[in-house]
């Protein structure tokens, strides 16, 4: 067991689960979508990106790319939410909520790819 691998795996899986926790639930209803979870998902996703820094292998490059995709989508979702809540006249409408949740769904996909890669890499090592 390697502590570095544990931390790496932990953050990748945590990014996925948090993302899922935010995404799951009725699309238009803000009750199902907690801001804390979105914030946590964003922070964990950023940390995951930094953990993937500096791996020059092909696998490392793909890891880094998927993580960047998740970051950007979560960031956009958060910005839209902030805009809707503070700047737009209408407030957080169901339409805005749908946008936020579906964008986080995109990040979810990227995180799934990340986890699949992690599993594939783990299986290929066979130790």
């Amino acid at each position, binding site marked *: 067991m390697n502590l570095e691998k544990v931390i790496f795996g932990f953050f990748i899986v945590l990014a996925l689960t948090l993302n899922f926790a935010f995404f799951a639930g009725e699309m238009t209803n803000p009750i199902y979508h907690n*801001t*804390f979870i979105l*914030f946590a998902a964003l*922070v964990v996703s*950023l*940390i995951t990106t*930094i*953990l993937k*820094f*500096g*791996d*020059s292998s092909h696998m490392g490059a793909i890891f880094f790319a998927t993580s960047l995709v998740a970051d950007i989508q979560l960031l956009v979702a*958060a910005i839209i939410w*902030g805009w809707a*809540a*503070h700047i737009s006249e209408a407030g957080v409408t169901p339409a805005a909520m749908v946008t936020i949740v579906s964008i986080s769904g995109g990040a979810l996909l990227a995180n799934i790819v990340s986890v699949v890669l992690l599993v594939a890499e783990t299986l290929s090592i066979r130790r």
Partner: protein
Amino acid sequence: MSRPNLYYILMKRLRVPLITLILIYAVSIVGFVLIPGRDNEGNVWMMSYFHAFYFVSYTASTIGFGEIPYAFTDAQRLWTTVTIYISVIGWLYSIGSLLSVLQDPAIYRLRRESKFRTKVKRLREPFYLVCGYGDTGSRLVQALAQEGVRTVVLDKDESRINDLELRDTLGRPLGLTADASKPMILEVSGVLNPYCKGVIALTDSDQTNLLIALSTELFKPHLRLLARAESPEIVTSIRSFGGNEVISPFEVFAERLEMVITKPSHYLLSEWLTGTPNQAISDPTFPKAGTWVLIGYGRFGQAVYRRLHSIGINFHVIDLKETIANPPPNSLMGCQANIESLKLAGIESAVGIIASTSDDAINLSVLMTARELNPNLYMVARQTQQDNSLIFERAQFQLVMNRGDVIAHQVFTLLRTPLTKDFLQLTRGEDKAWVDALLSRIMGITQDKLPYLWETKITPRHSPALYHACAAGERVSLKQLIAKPQQRDQTLPIIPLLLKRVDILLPVPDEETLLQAGDRILMCAPYQAYEQMQWATQNQKVLHYLLTGEEWVSSQLLRRLLPNS
């Protein structure tokens, strides 16, 4: 093999500080979102992420806009205090790590190297790769820079490369501290770059120069390679593959010395043609026939002895060491070069003395002593340290052999006007009268200054106007080419020294010789004449005038309307 990428290493090293920073921000933001505040009416007000992020951003960066949008409660103020301390510490830590990573010597080297690499990759003009930036290398790089030729310089010694970067050389040569004997370094320095015109190996070690020659040959056969080598074995082994040119400073100098003694006119010609243009011609003196004294029987001394002994010159040799295999006859081995030994060696009746030890101080002192004993001696000094040039000049010896100088001159001549070497080789066969006639012709055109040499190549790139005229079958003679562009019945003070057509070499071609496309001509003249002649090779109007004596009419319409003009 791939080299470590600078960015990957930077990112890897900065992982911990960046994660720390993110965590500090996250904790601070969450704290503000959780702690209830009060608005102006006293209602409970929960800070949103938007406001929390805004507040933490300006607090952590120490901008501090104050408590926005409502005055904080004590709980919020407590948390603000915590935020300020952890965020400032977080930033200090991150910036500190970034700076220490950037200053890490390994990273610094990597950064320099990666910069060098990109610069070399982006070179889009012909350049030479110079390995070794000592005396010779620095002189050569300077001389090439003045000719507008770019160089890429490698040296093991960091201080020399720093010196290169601090020097205000034209065209900014690129330098890297690296061991040129490693093939990978040569690759990084652009051996494979199509603009690399040649590799010049001038390091202190023969072995390294041999390795450079080998790798260059394997990387890119037929790439021009000039190397310096001192031991005869290495000289032959570098010459044995590819078309390499090797300069052995001792051999070159021994050859010169032989010329001074046996063929003074030839010597003068070669000095003039390889010297620095525009320098005043000094009045040379030449030794008389007789016996010589040679101080020092090391590699240099042996090279001189072999060469001069083979043409029947007699020597008395003095050397400090006793243990020399097969010492030459008439030698004093194991003996200081002082008044007694010099007298024993017959200094009073000798015609010349050669001080060839590797110690400048010994060479100087021996020559000064010898001058006291016999003021009419022809004195030859070997100079090892560049810094001693001033005193060697002061001492006014007839000949000073400075290794850096000798090699830099040779390499520079070979690079700039390769035909000079062919020409000098051809003149070896000519007699004294022929050479003397040429010398006085050169003297006549340059007014007591050393001439400027250049090659005119009749190719579309080098001389478009001349090339097109020749290719179109016009009759262009040398005489027409060197006529004055203002007044074609007068001639510019130019002497064509050598015409090279395919494999034929024509020394001092006749002025009526007709030129052909593809010819290469070695010319010699004062610099101003060179500039004027360049006009004719580049500009078709000027050439047209020189060929026909008529003004060129550039407009098609005018040419039709005035068919006779």
